[in-house]
């Protein structure tokens, strides 16, 4: 079953076409990757899915709902969570508060509940904290519960950002270069973590430059160059595709 469908999605910035008539489908329960040289339009594709940009043309559907032009917060509440290429944690908030903020769309406390800490609010907040602690343990941050996000080591921040995204109980998780800046051992942990996430029934869609990681983990890979899809398939197919080799190595002179 297709969880996410993009049909003819185009994004123009003035004279530049960052994403050009992109057709793309993600099957529920899979791990898929999007690769391509710098400036190929990968992050723009993410920003289109999460509603930062409204596409110039085309439509995006998620779990059977047309989300084209929706506000980011609405799309997030519907079940798409993401991490960012340059980590965007809430720096002056504790790790657990970051994760609790991730649960925002799943909590129901209104203004009066928040003001008066009603019994309903207390019960909800208690359960939310339990879930947040479990989530921190899941991403390996059980020792940094109350640390400010900005004080955590880089690799730990990456994992916290994934935990914060997972806290919203998404159906689809977008990871924007999750392995960037990680050492080999952190990358191995990341691969294991992504598999664990998929085993929870969450579909994972990642942008990544580390080819070894992408080839190891992805079931399907889409290759973008100059905003256009130039190849698609499983790792073996993509690796041997002449267009892909040309995009990465340049055409022979």
């Amino acid at each position: 079953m297709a969880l996410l469908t993009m049909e003819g999605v185009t994004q123009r910035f003035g004279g530049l076409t960052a994403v050009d008539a992109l057709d793309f489908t993600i099957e529920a329960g899979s791990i898929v990757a999007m690769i391509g040289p710098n400036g190929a339009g990968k992050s723009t594709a993410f920003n289109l899915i999460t509603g930062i940009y409204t596409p110039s043309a085309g439509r995006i559907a998620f779990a059977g709902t047309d989300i084209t032009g929706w506000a980011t917060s609405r799309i997030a509440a519907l079940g798409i969570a993401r991490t960012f290429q340059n980590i965007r944690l809430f720096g002056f908030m504790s790790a657990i508060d970051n994760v609790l903020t991730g649960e925002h769309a799943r909590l129901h406390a209104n203004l009066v509940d928040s003001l008066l800490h009603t019994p309903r609010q207390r019960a909800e907040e208690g359960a939310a904290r339990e879930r947040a602690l479990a989530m921190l343990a899941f991403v390996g941050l059980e020792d940094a519960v109350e640390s400010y996000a900005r004080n955590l080591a880089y690799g730990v921040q990456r994992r916290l950002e994934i935990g914060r995204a997972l806290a919203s109980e998404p159906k689809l998780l977008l990871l924007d270069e999750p392995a960037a800046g990680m050492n080999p051992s952190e990358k191995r942990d990341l691969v294991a973590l992504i598999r664990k996430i998929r085993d929870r029934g969450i579909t994972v869609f990642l942008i990544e430059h580390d080819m070894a990681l992408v080839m190891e983990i992805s079931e399907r890979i889409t290759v973008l160059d100059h905003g256009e899809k130039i190849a698609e398939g499983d790792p073996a197919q993509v690796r041997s595709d002449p267009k892909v080799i040309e995009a990465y190595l340049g055409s022979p002179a």
Partner: protein
Amino acid sequence: MRLIAPLTARLPPALRTPRAGTALAFAAALALPFIGRNGAFTNFLADAGAFVLLALGLNIVVGFAGLLDLGYAAFFAIGSYSYAMLASPQFGIHLPFWVLLFVASAIAAIFGILLGAPTLRLRGDYLAIVTLGFGEIVPQTFLNLSQWTGGPNGIGSLDQPVLFGYRFGFNPLPYYLMVLGLIALAAWLANNLRTSRLGRAWMAIREDELAAAHMGINTTSTKLAAFAMGASFSGLAGCALASKLQLVSPDQFMFNVSVFVLAMLVLGGMGNIPGVIVGSLILSALERFILPQTTNFMHNVGLNVDLTNSRFLIYGVILVTMMLFRPEGLIPSRQRNAELHAGQADRRAAAAEGELLTEVIH
């Protein structure tokens, strides 16, 4: 809190909790006017209390949600004038004070939303400029609508609060006790907000608005809620001070009031409730006692300097000094983090002990 930590470390653990600290501070505040037994001092406490309420309200907008509001005095004006128009001979309306506390807060909150709505797309400097404009427009409006507001003379002979048949009169003591009660209420509400879903959403917006939207936070309504809550606190302050002075006039709500309250936040520690209260008291004391007394002293020793005239220069120097040496304020909100880290070290030690135990058992 780092300043106080060596002192509190000697206290028994039961007295080191925030709850005990709050109770102790409240008891001290309650006792102050009876120890002082000085009308002028109690009068000062009552006035300073109204500014503590303002600082707590502005702290929600600036400290929690990170929206720089340079026109906060406008809401103070709206709260005060709401009371003045509904509890004075001006229109012959005399609603009870306790009802008007809620009414004035609600009116101020509505104006908070009205101001917030068109400014939500603005951030940082641009938002500050628009709120600055609003802060200028409101007192000017009260000045010019003289058929309703009494123009430059304002509205006088406001009703005094009555509680169970006891009229507050001209003695500052009942006003102080009332303001103290309102501060306790406001601080409790603000603290509840801070540790709630809404408070987290505000702080997330303050830290990174785009990331906050990706958490499913509706940034528009969340920012409006901050403006409304902040404004409603100034409605309480407006009622309290107007009923005590029994007079409102436009000159009480000029730009310098907005800056004064913002300076309280910067001095005390933005986002931290005890910090904001302390910062507010220090600046009020500076304004009422320290500068005039120092001026007197200097006159007595033959120096002809009037510090009260250059008080804004002095506030400026204080703010710049704070920014240079202690930008987080006197009592920063990081205090909590430090406390919790200490707790974590304890837990780690306990965990290590636990491991040893299991080794022994096996």
